[in-house]
């Protein structure tokens, strides 16, 4: 058994998971920014913005991620000619980040909105009553309190995002699951071992992530 001692395989393994980490990191940042904006739209007093936020969530939350990623590649790139990088791998990476971000933003938005609903309406009323604007009320009073009840759901969204990142393999990025498939093709006698190593690597990253967010949520819990 020289699968996991062969330097070529180790390089492939490491680079596969590095792509997963990069996809997760970049998409998490984009999805967070986008998700906060969408949530602000969904609670805003402006009907057009509310409609836009609602439409976004309904479209992307109810479309399979595979379709979203395929659309980024075949729709945005192949058909509409949107190229995000000259390097083929980087282009696929950024197309993947776009797909993962717009999809995950819908879940981030809903997590934030449910968090906003845990903040008593009196908090926003008191904020408006001293003359804070809608944006100030959200930024200074509502979101900081919502954030604390949003931490735990964010953990779940992040974990799902990390696993979803493997779907970018379908548009040609050699990330972890693609590396695994290639290794299985080369080492048909070690399928179970290969599978366990890759699944174990995901678990080794994600189980502590889950516990970390749980711990953070408890630490930040708001006193009432």
């Amino acid at each position, binding site marked *: 058994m020289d699968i996991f001692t062969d330097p070529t395989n180790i390089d492939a393994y490491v680079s596969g998971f590095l792509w997963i980490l990069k996809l997760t990191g970049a998409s998490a940042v984009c999805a967070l920014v986008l998700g906060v904006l969408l949530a602000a739209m969904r609670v805003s007093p402006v009907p057009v913005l509310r409609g836009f936020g609602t439409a976004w969530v309904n479209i992307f939350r109810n479309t399979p991620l595979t379709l979203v990623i395929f659309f980024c590649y075949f729709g945005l790139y192949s058909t509409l000619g949107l190229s995000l990088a000259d390097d083929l791998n980087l282009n696929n990476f950024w197309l993947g980040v776009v797909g993962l971000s717009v999809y995950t933003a819908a879940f981030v938005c809903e997590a934030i909105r449910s968090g906003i609903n845990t903040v008593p309406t009196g*908090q926003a009323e*008191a*904020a408006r009553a001293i*003359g*804070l604007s809608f944006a100030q009320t959200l930024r200074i009073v509502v979101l900081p309190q919502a954030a604390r009840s949003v931490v735990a759901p964010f953990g779940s969204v992040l974990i799902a995002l990390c696993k979803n990142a493997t779907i970018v393999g379908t548009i040609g990025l050699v990330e972890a699951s693609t590396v695994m498939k290639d290794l299985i093709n080369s080492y048909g006698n070690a399928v179970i071992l290969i599978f366990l190593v890759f699944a174990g690597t995901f678990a080794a990253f994600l189980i502590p992530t889950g516990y970390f967010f749980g711990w953070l949520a408890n630490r930040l819990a708001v*006193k009432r």
Partner: protein
Amino acid sequence: MTTGEPLIVLDSVNKWFGPLHVLDDVSLSVGRGEVVVVIGPSGSGKSTLCRAINRLEPINSGTITFDGRELPAEGKALAKLRSEVGMVFQSFNLFAHKTILENVTLGPIEVRGEKPAAARERGLALLDRVGIANQADKFPAMLSGGQQQRAAIARALAMQPKAMLFDEPTSALDPEMVGEVLEVMTSLAREGMTMVVVTHEMGFARHAANRVIFMADGKLVEDAAPTEFFANPRSERAKDFLSKILTH
């Protein structure tokens, strides 16, 4: 007491919650420095009336004028108007994630752009005035109800409002804490603050109010000086209401 043009004017105000007519053709004017106490059975629309004055409740028809200007629609102008009208809620609504002092200085710093150091100094003076300067660095949940409500009054006063609205400020308090809040309100009234107070505290209405408004079923039924209202209520509704609350 009253000088010049009235500060708050409601003219034929109507509001519905679905089929429920919560404000039925209400007209009222409150002069500068006047203390108006609004009483009435629950569901009579008195809280809605109070909340309509700074447009926390939008109205369906009629006009509300504050300091000579009609209430603006949602936006910057409304935020400015609200900063000039202090509001005290039944459930205090102190910002749960901010300390007592931060609650008081938030408006001056964020809305008025005051320097934090100056706002802090003024905030501490206000907390001292309502008797809770020693609680400045605690969070709201660590204070008693009475202390929280006094902090909420200090938060409203920090904006140097032209008028103060009180929406049942003592209804959520344990009985032994009602006095400390009423004391602060009474001293405010004496200093000439324009106040609209929705309350069930008849003692406060008697000794601190210039006028008592009695509401029932969304209508403004009586508007009289407290001595006159408590001694000779004109309407049957008011007589009935007073007989129920004053015999115990």
